[in-house]
């Protein structure tokens, strides 16, 4: 409400009420200037604006200051007094400048408003600008909303992934860095076989031929690309803390980019609060999609996604590598074994429920109560049992407790290629 016009209306109405009550015309004379200021006010000029929004940098790191630039162009008449306010999304913190501007804007003039925000990991949506056009003297105003959408994706902090040499049952016809072992055009020795007409003479293994009395040729290992699917567990009940989930997001992105860097095709799925799916792909555009998906990951609960029973794993190409990033509940083991039985090569990155992911610092020993020690010991035994069952099922496991960097993890067990 425009307080000044409200005050003028109140005073004028009060004076008129006095005049009517006392049947005295002098009070109306007092109300006249106030009422005239209210009633003679022309309408505020109608604004015709065009707004564009840009972010610098377009893909910021977590906590990095981002400059939000708003460019407005007046396509209509001159605006003597215009107020523009941009709404900073929840979670983002204003670091510098102001998202508010007020002043006059000539016809055809351009205006740039910029300010800086700091954002944690997440997807931040900017809807538009709240604008008010005013008459400076009469204080009449017209408020309107100017759409100026923008989305800022802040991916998780970058981590170095462990170098995994793991293949998949099905490989792609293209070359790529993976653990898939196939004979082809490579530099590493793969094996030998009998000579067939057409084989290159330079690949003849003379020593083996002399030993066995027949022509033998060397085979080399051709590095082949694979299809890798990353599943990020977003079920709120599976996580102990927000730090643990943040570490999971960062690890999922690091692993996805590791496979992407090896020219493999990578798909990504968020399972928990919702089911979000990025189809397998490769290249720079796919990297952007994966980062956006990791940025948008949120914890949540959904009755249909309480367990991995409804995991639509068939979205991943048959025989591909499926990597699950999760703290792993006890009930999840069955779903992983079913996935394994379906012909997928399954690997799990387990975020230790007892780990410390707050800043990835080693947990300091505290004087915990005896009950807590016993509970911890029970959980450790339960974990050991679960991990042993995973290993027996042919599911590779990376166990991460947050005290060591992600790249230093070594795979426990062996992710078998065939069920």
């Amino acid at each position, binding site marked *: *409400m*425009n307080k000044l016009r409200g*005050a*003028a209306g109140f005073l004028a109405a009060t004076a008129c009420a006095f005049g009517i009550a006392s049947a005295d*015309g*002098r009070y109306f004379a007092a109300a006249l200037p106030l009422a005239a200021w*209210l009633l003679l006010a022309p309408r505020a000029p109608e604004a015709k604006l065009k707004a564009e929004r840009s972010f610098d940098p377009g893909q910021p790191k977590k906590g990095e200051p981002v400059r939000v630039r708003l460019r407005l162009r007046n396509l209509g008449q001159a605006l*003597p007094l215009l107020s523009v306010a941009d709404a900073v999304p929840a979670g983002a913190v204003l670091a510098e400048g102001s998202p508010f501007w007020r002043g*006059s804007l000539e016809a055809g003039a351009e205006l740039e408003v910029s300010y800086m925000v700091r954002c944690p990991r997440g997807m931040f949506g900017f809807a538009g600008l709240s604008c008010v056009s005013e008459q400076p003297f009469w204080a009449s105003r017209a408020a309107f909303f100017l759409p100026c959408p923008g989305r800022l994706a802040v991916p998780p902090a970058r981590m170095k992934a462990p170098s995994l040499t793991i293949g998949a049952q099905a490989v792609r016809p293209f070359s790529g860095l993976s653990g898939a072992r196939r004979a082809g055009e490579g530099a590493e020795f793969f094996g030998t076989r009998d000579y067939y007409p057409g084989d290159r003479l330079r690949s003849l293994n003379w020593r083996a031929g002399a030993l066995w009395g027949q022509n033998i040729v060397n085979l080399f290992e051709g590095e082949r690309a694979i299809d890798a699917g990353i599943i990020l567990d977003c079920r709120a009940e599976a996580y102990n803390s927000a730090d643990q989930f943040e570490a999971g997001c960062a690890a999922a992105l690091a692993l996805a980019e590791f496979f992407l860097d090896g020219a493999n095709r990578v798909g990504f799925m968020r399972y928990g609060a919702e089911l979000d799916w990025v189809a397998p792909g490769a290249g720079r555009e796919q990297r952007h999609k994966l980062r956006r998906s990791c940025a948008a990951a949120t914890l949540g609960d959904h009755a249909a996604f309480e367990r991995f029973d409804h995991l639509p794993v068939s979205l991943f190409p048959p025989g591909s590598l499926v990597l699950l990033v999760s703290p792993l509940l006890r009930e999840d083991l069955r779903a992983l074994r079913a996935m394994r039985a379906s012909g997928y090569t399954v690997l799990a990155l387990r975020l230790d429920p007892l780990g410390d992911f707050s800043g990835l610092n080693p947990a300091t020993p505290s004087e915990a109560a005896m009950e807590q020690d016993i509970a911890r010991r029970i959980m450790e035994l339960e974990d050991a049992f679960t991990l042993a069952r995973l290993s027996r099922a042919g599911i590779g496991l990376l166990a991460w407790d947050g005290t060591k960097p992600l790249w230093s993890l070594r795979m426990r067990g062996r992710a078998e290629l065939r069920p």
Partner: protein
Amino acid sequence: MSGIAIALIGLAATIALIALRYLSVRSYLSPGLRRSFMRLTAMFTGASGLAGLALAALSGSLALPAGPALILGILAFRAFIREAGKGER
């Protein structure tokens, strides 16, 4: 209190509101718009002041300028309600 004194109180209240308005928007206006504001203020206070004083002088001889006064009151009340409603939305 004489009729002219009451009319001057109304005029003073109007000028005070306009002054407050000026102070709140002054820093956002260009020098040209500030001059325009001052010119408009002078014209408006002059005209409405004269009209108010004239009405106050006349109201002594007339019993009650009931018709226009009632309309003025209703319009002022309506404007007040409208301003209050903008805030609610």
